[in-house]
């Protein structure tokens, strides 16, 4: 896949959305430059190193039949800390 360029405009302000303990408040500019795009992958398109088929084949080895985790980001952080300990 070649370089891709996207041109989403910066939202200078946006509404607040609250859900599940998260609050989106975009009242401040996300970037210093008001004209800068949110993103541009034109110069840094990552290299794809594995095909989907290869990834799926590797995943099959774990024989997982369901993923159901209702964890918040904090819950996942706690799990990670536990693993470290």
């Amino acid at each position, binding site marked *: 896949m070649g370089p891709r360029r*996207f041109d989403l405009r910066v939202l200078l302000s946006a509404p607040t*959305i609250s*859900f599940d303990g*998260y609050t*989106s408040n975009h009242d401040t500019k996300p970037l210093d430059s008001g004209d800068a795009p949110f*993103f541009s992958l034109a110069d840094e398109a990552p290299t794809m190193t594995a095909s989907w088929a290869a*990834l799926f084949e590797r995943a099959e080895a774990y024989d997982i*039949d369901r993923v159901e985790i209702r964890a918040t980001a904090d819950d996942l952080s706690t799990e990670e800390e536990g*693993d470290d300990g």
Partner: protein
Amino acid sequence: MAERPNPARVVADHEVLATDLLVGGDARDALDHVRRHSWVELVASDPLLERTERLVSVLADPELAADHRARLEAERVAVEQPEGDHPALASAYQGQAAQLLSYDDRLRSAKAGLTLQPRVSLSVRPPDAFARLFDPESLYEAVEGGEYPGPDRDPRA
């Protein structure tokens, strides 16, 4: 009010992305629709990918999780999101995506709808519904214009 979302932009939350990789089923059917059409875009912020990588790492192994993330990074439309925002919702909101794939029925609740509807026009569906209802012919006509040429990418490449 946010601008009109792009019906060809899709966000999948971390559970759906992990299920696509580790289980298959409806999640893979749904994301195959995205993968086999170059004009259908998967939107994801870095925090959404981080959350997905952490989940896959816990359920499988860190190497597979990292490779999966690298693949997603290569294909996604990347968007910035404010710190502390809900990764999937923020990805949809910031990326002007019209579709959010999630198993989290709380996102489809009346309460969530009342919060979201005045702000964003976002269809939150479980993967099986998206997989079943995805209509590439009409979507292509609306987004790209002209007659749908059929899939243009190998979803396993």
